[in-house]
């Protein structure tokens, strides 16, 4: 036709309307094609995975679905099931209190550790989520003494003296620290210890016959409660001690440095189980014979120093990763050692160390189950000992150990999720 009239000139009269992408390129179809069936080997893997998932579900789902929750022994449960696949979860409901509180904790006092557990969340919140009002930290400071009183009971004087000792120590420290850092630290500690020993004698003499909350011995703690007590106390003590050890290891004072190095290297070189046996048996030789240090305190000391040594090394990595310029900038502005550490060095070093610290914390929490081998009846100790050994529930492994696994998983996964949130929240480098 008009072949000669071809021209490069072009004017669009109507703008093209936006169209949706073709069906195979959107939504689920696109995702499945790209992620599951992108090539042959990928497709084969997808099919195999589906088969594996199917078999897993085919076994686990009926086991959970047909689970029996109300019988009072394994034999009874088998009778109800009549050969059908199903879990005997009734061991959990029937032995619930033992799993959570151990077999010796007085049942009329169960509400006390339960209340302490609920309050733990309120106490931890302002520490974990630092956007919350700072005034809430007052409760956090009071919580250890409150929780001690709730769980162990006995005269309220003891936790009050504990609190008073901390307050006196802090006061003495803050008066003296302006003159000399080490002096403030040492005398502050001494003042706290003096208050405690004086006060506990006083409370021992003045204690009423019937305290408001009945006393419970440490030997009676058990179940998941014991894991929670050990884990929370050891982690919250190990972090500050680990920081102190890491800073001490960097110290220019040779004595401080070598004490920290020897301590860290020794503790890291010894298995935790050995330390726990030491706590159980040997530690008594080191204390004066009349000092009957509570077994729980001995175990907490061992767990704490063990994880403190690891945390110290993790933090040392964070300190080493910090450019020298940060120290120099802090120095050049006239900040003293404590200020430079508190406001410049540690915030950055700890941020770098978060994944490592969380690793240690999660490991420590799971390691609290090791106390079962020194005949403390924590969750695993309860399962392996009193429950599996009983005539009613001999042989219910999957349900009990699965339950323990779920409980530990919830806590550890929670810690892990928190740490990831924290890393995102603290990210200011905008790389």
């Amino acid at each position, binding site marked *: 036709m008009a072949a000669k009239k071809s021209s490069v000139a072009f004017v669009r009269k109507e703008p093209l309307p936006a169209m949706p992408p073709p069906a195979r390129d959107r939504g689920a179809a696109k995702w499945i094609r790209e992620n599951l069936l992108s090539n042959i080997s990928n497709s084969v893997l997808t099919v195999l995975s589906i088969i594996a998932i199917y078999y897993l579900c085919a076994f686990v789902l009926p086991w959970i679905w047909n689970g029996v929750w109300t019988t009072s022994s394994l034999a009874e449960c088998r009778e109800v099931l009549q050969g059908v696949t199903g879990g005997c979860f009734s061991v959990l409901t029937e032995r619930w209190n033992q799993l959570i509180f151990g077999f010796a904790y007085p049942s009329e006092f169960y509400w006390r550790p339960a209340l302490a557990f609920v309050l733990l969340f309120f106490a931890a919140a302002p520490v974990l989520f630092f956007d919350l009002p700072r005034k809430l930290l007052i409760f956090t400071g009071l919580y250890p003494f409150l929780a001690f009183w709730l769980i162990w009971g006995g005269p309220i004087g003891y936790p009050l003296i504990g609190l008073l000792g901390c307050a006196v120590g802090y006061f003495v420290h803050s008066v003296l620290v302006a003159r000399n850092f080490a002096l403030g630290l040492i005398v502050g500690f001494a003042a706290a210890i003096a208050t405690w020993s004086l006060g506990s004698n006083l409370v021992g003499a003045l204690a009423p016959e019937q305290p408001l909350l009945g006393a419970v011995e440490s030997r009676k703690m058990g179940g998941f409660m014991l894991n929670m007590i050990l884990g929370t106390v050891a982690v919250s003590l190990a972090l500050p001690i680990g920081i102190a050890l890491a800073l001490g290891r960097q110290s220019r004072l040779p004595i401080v440095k070598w004490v920290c190095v020897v301590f860290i290297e020794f503790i890291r070189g010894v298995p935790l189980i050995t330390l726990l046996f030491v706590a159980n048996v040997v530690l008594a030789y080191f204390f004066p014979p009349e000092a009957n240090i509570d077994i729980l305190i001995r175990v907490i000391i061992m767990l704490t120093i063990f994880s403190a040594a690891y945390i110290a090394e993790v933090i040392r990595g964070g300190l080493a990763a910090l450019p020298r*310029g*940060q120290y120099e900038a802090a*120095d050049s*502005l*006239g900040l003293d050692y404590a200020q430079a550490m508190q406001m*410049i060095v540690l915030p950055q070093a700890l941020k770098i160390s978060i994944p490592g610290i969380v690793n240690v914390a999660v490991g420590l929490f799971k390691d609290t189950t090791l106390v079962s081998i020194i005949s403390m009846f924590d969750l695993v100790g309860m399962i392996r000992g009193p429950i599996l050994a009983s005539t009613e529930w001999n042989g219910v492994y999957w349900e009990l150990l699965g339950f323990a696994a779920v409980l530990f998983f919830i806590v550890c996964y929670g810690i892990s999720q928190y740490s990831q949130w924290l890393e995102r929240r603290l990210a*200011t480098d905008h790389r």
Partner: protein
Amino acid sequence: MAKAQTAAAKKLEVSDEIAISITNMNKWYGAFHVLKEIDLTVNRGERIVICGPSGSGKSTLIRCINALEEHQQGSITVDGTLLSSDIKNIDKIRSEVGMVFQHFNLFPHLTILENCTLAPIWVRKIPKKEAEDTAMHFLEKVKIPEQADKYPGQLSGGQQQRVAIARSLCMRPRIMLFDEPTSALDPEMIKEVLDTMISLAEEGMTMLCVTHEMGFARQVANRVIFMDAGQIVEQNEPEAFFNNPQSDRTKLFLSQILGH
């Protein structure tokens, strides 16, 4: 314009009061003798540029002045305070002497404003509100008040260095030390930092500046010091120093840095 500024800078008064006096100072890194027999007196209001080849000890010299490096012999007196191993004296001198680093060394976990208010609040014990006002005043002076709530990682190199200068100024120092403040910057950003330093000089700040910016030296300095192998080889007024260097080492150095 540049001429006029030069003239203005030249007229800046140098008082007779002594700000820094260094006598017979020696420093070793292990067995390596980095600084040899340094004698230097700086009067209040002086603007001194220190130059020299790398490894000549010029950074080490100014880092000795605020005790970031320890010297082993001789004495350093800053504002009448003798620098000794006494931590009180060191902290006192450091709070009087501002320092700007080659790599800025801002605190990356704090906002610009917090970077500037941290030391005044904790070292000078100034109320937070007042420290923030001061910080905003100096951030305006270095022309970046609008970045106050950002983090250092969000700023360009030149902006970061200007914040670093503002951070030092917030401590109201009587002496400023600059350790190659422009060496880590892109060429376009060097000017904004130098402009800030020039305006500081015009206000009469006592400055010691390790730099290779010879234009800056000509325009602002009242004295140029050339160092080599740990010694002060030559010092003079900038005109004489650049136009008529005396030692061969200085001539060689100048021909190399001005040659292209």
